[in-house]
C-alpha cells in the first residue's frame, strides 16, 4: 500500500467529523481538495519540485490526527486604559468573509496543499484592516505536544488590507519527544501598498517532519520580507511561492539553514514576476554538517509583461563535513526582454587557510570552525530588521554551532 492510501481512508472515515468541527468557508473547498489529493497521491521524486524530498516515506508512519479546537482570546490590556486591538482570530470566527481568500492564493494542484485543505479543521487568521499597523509584532508559537505520534495540519491566512503593515513571527517548537508530522499552508494576501515582515523559525527535534507551503500574493506598491530560519529539525520541506501581481512591489526571501547529524532541509521557492517594475531579492545560506542533507531550488520567473524587473538570487552553502551533502539549483526563467536579473550559487568547504591563521593565533580548531560558520551565517542574520529578534538569533545561531541547541531551549524537555 502506498502512503496516500491511509490518508484517503482517514478522510473517508473522519471527513464528516472534520466538517462538523470546521466552518462553511473551509468545508466549501474540502471535498474538491480531497479529490485532487486522491487523484494525485503524494508526489514522487520524479516531480520536479519534490525531487529532493521523499514525501511518501515521511507520510508512511501511522500518525494520529489532532482535531483540537483553536481558541483565540481577545488580547488582554497590559495596563488599564490600554485597549489592545485584536488582529489574530481563528478561521472559524473570522470578522470578515474569507471566501474570496481562503485557498485562493495557494496552489490548488499541489498534493500537500490539497491534503492540508482536506484535513484541516480550523486555522489562524491574521487580519490587519486598512492603513493599520499593529503596535507590536504578532508572534505565533506552535508547540507540538502529544503522547503518541501525531499529525498536525496547520492553516494560516494573513490578510493585509490596503496600506496595512505587520510584522509576524511564527515559531515552531516541539514540547515532547515524540514523532510529529506537520503540514502547514500559509496564504498571504498583501493588498496595495501593504508591508509585511515575516519570520518563520523552526526549532524542533530530530523526530519532527515539517511540510510547509507558503503562498504570498502582492498587489502594487507592496513590500514583503519573508525569512525562513531552520535552526534545529528532523526533516523539513519548505515551499515558498510569491506572486507579484501589482507594479512597484518588492519581495525579499531570506533563508538560514543549519543542519548536522541526519537532518534534512529542502527549501523550494518560486518568485513569479507577473507585472513590470518589481524587484526581488533572494538570499539563502546553509551550513550542513555531519551526515545531513540540504537542498535549495529557487526559481525566478519573469513573465512576458514583466519589463524592468530587477532580481537577484543567491544561494551560498558551506559543507562543514565531508559526509554532508548539498544540492543547489538556482533558476531563472525570463520571457521579458528588458530586465536585470542575476542568479548564482556556491557550495564550499571550510577555508583551511583561515582556520590555520586562527589556530596560529591560538584559537582552538573547534572554536575557529565555530567562528567561521557563525561569520558565514551572519550575513543572513544581519538582514533581519526586527532588532530584538536579530540579537536573539545571533545568540541562538552561535549556540547552535556550539552544539548547545540540541533541543529548543525554551521547552520543558530541556529544563
Amino acid at each position, binding site marked *: 500500500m502506498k502512503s496516500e492510501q491511509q490518508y484517503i481512508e482517514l478522510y473517508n472515515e473522519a471527513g464528516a467529523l472534520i466538517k462538523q468541527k470546521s466552518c462553511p468557508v473551509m468545508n466549501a473547498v474540502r471535498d474538491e481538495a480531497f479529490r485532487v489529493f486522491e487523484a494525485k497521491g503524494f508526489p514522487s521524486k520524479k516531480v520536479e519540485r519534490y525531487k529532493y524530498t521523499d514525501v511518501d516515506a515521511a507520510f508512511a508512519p501511522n500518525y494520529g490526527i489532532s482535531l483540537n479546537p483553536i481558541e483565540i482570546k481577545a488580547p488582554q490590556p497590559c495596563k488599564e486604559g490600554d485597549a489592545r486591538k485584536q488582529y489574530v482570530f481563528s478561521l472559524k470566527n473570522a470578522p470578515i468573509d474569507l471566501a474570496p481568500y481562503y485557498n485562493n492564493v495557494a496552489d490548488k494542484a499541489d498534493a500537500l496543499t490539497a491534503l492540508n485543505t482536506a484535513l484541516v479543521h480550523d486555522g489562524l487568521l491574521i487580519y490587519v484592516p486598512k492603513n493599520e499597523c499593529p503596535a507590536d509584532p504578532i508572534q505565533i508559537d506552535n508547540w507540538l505536544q502529544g503522547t503518541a505520534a501525531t499529525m498536525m495540519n496547520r492553516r494560516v491566512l494573513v490578510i493585509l488590507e490596503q496600506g496595512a503593515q505587520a510584522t509576524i513571527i511564527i515559531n515552531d517548537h516541539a514540547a515532547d519527544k515524540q514523532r510529529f508530522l506537520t503540514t502547514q499552508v500559509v496564504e498571504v494576501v498583501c493588498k496595495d501598498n501593504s508591508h509585511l515582515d515575516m519570520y518563520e523559525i523552526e526549532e524542533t527535534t530530530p523526530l519532527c517532519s515539517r511540510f510547509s507551503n507558503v503562498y504570498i500574493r502582492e498587489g502594487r506598491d507592496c513590500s514583503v520580507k519573508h525569512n525562513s530560519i531552520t535552526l534545529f529539525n528532523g526533516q523539513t520541506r519548505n515551499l515558498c511561492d510569491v506572486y507579484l501581481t501589482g507594479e512597484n512591489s518588492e519581495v525579499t526571501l531570506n533563508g538560514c539553514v543549519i543542519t548536522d547529524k541526519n537532518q534534512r532541509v529542502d527549501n523550494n521557492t518560486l518568485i513569479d514576476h507577473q507585472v513590470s517594475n518589481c524587484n526581488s531579492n533572494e538570499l539563502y545560506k546553509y551550513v550542513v554538517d555531519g551526515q545531513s542533507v540540504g537542498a535549495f531550488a529557487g526559481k525566478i520567473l519573469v513573465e512576458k509583461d514583466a519589463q524592468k524587473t530587477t532580481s537577484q538570487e543567491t544561494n551560498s552553502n558551506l559543507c562543514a563535513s565531508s559526509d554532508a551533502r548539498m544540492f543547489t539549483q538556482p533558476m531563472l526563467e525570463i520571457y521579458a526582454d528588458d530586465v536585470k536579473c542575476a542568479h548564482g550559487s556556491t557550495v564550499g568547504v571550510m577555508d583551511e587557510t583561515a582556520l*590555520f591563521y586562527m589556530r596560529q*593565533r591560538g584559537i582552538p580548531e573547534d572554536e575557529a570552525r565555530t567562528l567561521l560558520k557563525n561569520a558565514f551565517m551572519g550575513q543572513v542574520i544581519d538582514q533581519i530588521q526586527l532588532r530584538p529578534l536579530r540579537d536573539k538569533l545571533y545568540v541562538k545561531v552561535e549556540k547552535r554551532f556550539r552544539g548547545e541547541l540540541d533541543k529548543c531551549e525554551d521547552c520543558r524537555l530541556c529544563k
Partner: protein
Amino acid sequence: MHATVGGKEILKGVDLTIKDGEIHALMGTNGAGKSTLSNVIVGNPAYEVTEGSITFNGQDLLAMKTEERAHAGIFMSFQAPIEIPGVSMTNFMRAAVNARRQALGKEPLKSTDFLKIMREKRKLVEIDQKLMNRSVNEGFSGGERKRNEIFQMAMLEPTFCILDETDSGLDVDALRIVAEGFNKLRTEETSAMVITHYQRLLDYIKPDVVHVLIDGKIVKTGGPELALKIENEGFDWIKAELA
C-alpha cells in the same frame, strides 16, 4: 629536519638553534624553503615533517597542535595575512587572547580590560580604531595588514616570533613603524627568526646571526655582515662556493 609539502621534499636537512633573546635572519633564494621552515615550526597542517625534530623550550613541538604551539609562545607574522570575512578584528583578538589565557590557566579578560589593552597596543603600530571593527584583514591595505600582524603580536606577547617577509610591500614609513613596533615589544627573552630579501629591514631589526638557505639546506651562517654582502653581491658567490 626534513619536510615535505604535497609529497615534495622542500627541506632537506635543516639544523638550526636559536637561543633566548637572539635574532636570526634567514635569507635565501626564492623557493629555497624559508616559508616552509616557518610553516613547519608553527604547525601548518599542509606541511609534513618526515625526519628530525623541533624542540621549543624543551617541549617537542611536533607533538603539539598548531594552537598549542601558539599558546607556548610561538607567533608568525604571515607573509600574506589571511582575510576572514564576517569575523571582526575585535572578536578575533578576544578569542585568541582568551584562548591563550585559558591554556595558561588564567581567567578570561574582562571586556573593559581587553578593550583597554587593545587601545594601548594599537598605538604601538599606529593602527586605526576603525580597522578593529572590520572583518579580519578585509579591505586592509598591504601596509595595514602587516601592521595588523605586529599588532596581533603585541596582543599575544609571544616569546618566539617569525617575521615572514614582513617588510614586503611596505613603504619606508610603514617599514619603520612596523620594525620599531617589533623592537618595542622585544624583551630579553624574545627571540625571532626574520625572513627577508632585503637589508633595509635588518637596519631596524638588527640580527645576531644570519643564515642562508638554499635548496632546503642552511648553506652558510655568519654575522650581520653576511646580509650586507648578499645585499650587494646576491647569492651567486655562495652557490659558486658550493659547486
